């Protein structure tokens, strides 16, 4: 009986007894969920366009963030005064580098592998991952770096609200993250739904052959979509880097996108967002209210458990379509 009480009654008593902690947990879950969604979005964009699960998305986050802070340091070394000018110049250059990376990936990795089985393309992204790790360490070194959040005019400090005898603290950087991610998702959705390139991308996602037959350039679409994934990676790197530090350990965070993808589907932008939020909020609530029952530290597997639980009832994922094939 005691264990049933601890599972089914006590957590809800705690929620009612300390609503400030509940709101705080929900907020932390929302922020984490938005950031997971952002990582998942990078995977979804590339999967939609090429059917490739881009294993390199995690290291692209690290590479983009390292390029930003590395170029900033170079600019300072070259005499550009510290502050917003150097930071925004570095941001522009980092975007340019992600563009060059997209172009290089299309030329060197994807183009020679056209018409190869998906697993070959998947393995190629493994190769890309290890190349980027080595190249990144060669150029920027393995030392963790501080994200130039202040120089990019991202806010610092916290906003506190009093609530039911307690308080809820929201870090301004987290509020900024939620806003930036929301704008980014809206922008990407508009781009892919309403623009000519976006429609072309959806056509490529449906059928490479059909898209080619109506004159859509696969190469161009791939460059665009890898560049978009690069922008997403840079944004993710800035936001996670500001919360902790810019180091190669950030690539581990990308693993968090996997349960989000399981849940939201590999091809759905809304799926990535809603999946990210469910995983983010679910794991924070689970860890906070039920984690102590299991010795804490359940967050790392709880996300997968939540995803699998959903799949039990909706195997096609949240926004996926039921695929019925005639045998």
């Amino acid at each position: 009986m005691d264990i049933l009480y601890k599972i089914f009654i006590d957590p809800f008593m705690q929620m009612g007894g300390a609503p400030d902690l509940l709101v705080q947990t929900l907020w932390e879950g929302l922020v984490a969920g938005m950031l997971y969604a952002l990582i998942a979005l990078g995977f979804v964009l590339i999967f939609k366009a090429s059917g490739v699960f881009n294993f390199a998305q995690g290291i692209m986050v690290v590479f983009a963030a390292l390029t930003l802070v590395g170029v900033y340091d170079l600019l300072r070394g070259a005499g550009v005064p510290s502050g917003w000018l150097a930071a925004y110049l570095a941001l522009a250059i980092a975007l340019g580098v992600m563009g060059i990376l997209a172009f290089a990936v299309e030329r060197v990795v994807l183009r020679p592998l056209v018409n190869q089985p998906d697993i070959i393309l998947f393995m190629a992204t493994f190769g890309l991952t290890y190349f980027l790790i080595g190249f990144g360490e060669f150029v920027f070194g393995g030392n963790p770096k501080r994200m130039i959040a202040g120089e990019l005019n991202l806010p610092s400090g916290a906003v506190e609200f009093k609530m039911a005898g307690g308080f809820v603290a929201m870090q301004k950087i987290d509020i900024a993250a939620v806003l930036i991610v929301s704008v980014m998702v809206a922008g990407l959705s508009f781009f892919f739904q309403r623009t000519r390139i976006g429609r072309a991308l959806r056509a490529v996602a449906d059928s490479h052959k059909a898209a080619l037959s109506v004159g859509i350039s696969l190469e161009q679409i791939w460059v665009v979509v890898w560049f978009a994934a690069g922008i997403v990676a840079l944004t993710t790197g800035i936001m996670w880097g500001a919360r902790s530090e810019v180091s190669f350990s950030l690539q581990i965070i990308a693993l968090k996108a996997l349960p989000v993808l399981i849940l939201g589907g590999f091809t759905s932008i809304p799926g990535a967002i809603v999946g990210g939020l469910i995983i983010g909020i679910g794991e924070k609530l689970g860890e906070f209210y039920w984690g102590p029952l299991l010795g804490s530290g359940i967050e790392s597997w709880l996300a997968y458990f939540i995803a699998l639980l959903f799949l039990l009832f909706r195997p096609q994922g949240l926004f996926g379509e039921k695929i019925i094939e005639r045998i």
Partner: protein
Amino acid sequence: MLGLRNIKTTMIAAALVAGTVATSPPATAQESIYVPLFTYRTGPFSGSGIYIAEGMRDYLEMLNQRDGGIGGVKLALEECETGYDTKKGLECYEAVKDKKPVVINPWSTGITLPLIPRAAVDKVPVLSMAYGLSAAAIGDTFPWIFNPPATYWDGASMILNYIGEKEGGIDKLKGKTIGYIYLDAGFGKEPIPLLEQLAKDYGYTLKLYPVAATEMQNQSSQWLNVRRDRPDYMIMYGWGALQPTAVKEAVKINYPMDKFVSIWWASEDDAAAGGPQSKGFKVLNWHAVGDNLPAIADIKKHVTDKNLTQTDKSHIGKVLYNRGIYNSMLIAEGIRNAQKLSGKKVITGEDMRRGLETLNIDAARYKEMGLEGFAGPVKLTCADHNGHFATYMQEWDGSKYVKVSGDLKASMDKVSPLMNAAAKEYTEKAGSWPKRTEACDKAS
């Protein structure tokens, strides 16, 4: 004329050959002592590992450059990158063990644990300096393992004694709540049995906050739990990205930083991550910080100024850089001792084991080494491979660590019985653990 395909093939072959050469170890001359260094300058734990690797290598390289090695024999140094990954660490061990290493420095508790049974078989001593299995301090049971100057269990006991001192006596811990945030791996789990036992003995409540390696930069849940549980003190056993993130999260929830105490692995960068609000954060240490020592001046003169190292000059004198120096100082003294005891210039792993077992570094010896005042004396014996030496508490003042305590000693009346029991349990679990057959040298 070569076709395009042939050119491509030739280039790939050339690259492979070049790669093989580049990754080959330096040729170990007949008259050299082979000292492999397991390091991690890359990966999620490089933030801590780079400093250690730099300090460790620079000190030994300085001995090579300044003195021509030790006892007239050059040290053949070779780094093996483990990435703090146990699997890679074991690959490193397999790669170096046939080259007759005199000592292995795993620099990871996870790598140390599987090497403990192998050390006696391969006749290579393992120096796990202030990390690894705490019970390995018992030399009679683990003759090939050395972990001076203090174990993780000693560290936990020292931190509790420090807290007790602040509270007005160890008995004042009764009724308090002590939180323990740790890397959910061999290293972080190591002191839990002691903390649990001491919770019973002293009457405090222990709250555990494990952080998986995959969640090091995502600790908001753990710190929400801290906010709910309101522990009176927080103890941290962290490494790599876990530490700066924990400091940031502690600041975020307004945890009183003067009650946040870390084992000896937190660096200046880790403390600074929390900004000005992380003032008061505390870390154990046992050696000096800074570069105002003749031996470090020699490192600059003979190694860094001559660009014989990858070291970032701004790292010299930082707490973990000096930790690397301390580790290499132990290696060097072990080799010197082994040369004296064996009468050989080029020693073996077996000689080195004897050398480490008879380590006796006093204040006079520190002065001779150009390390006067660097750390406390180290004297090991056949029975005690650790020494359980005192540490001190240092506090982050916003820009540097400042010593804020006198000598902190472990309560050996509490630690020793548990350590003996753990050693017994270890050997029983291992099945047939060999009885010590290695003779003790007179100096022990």
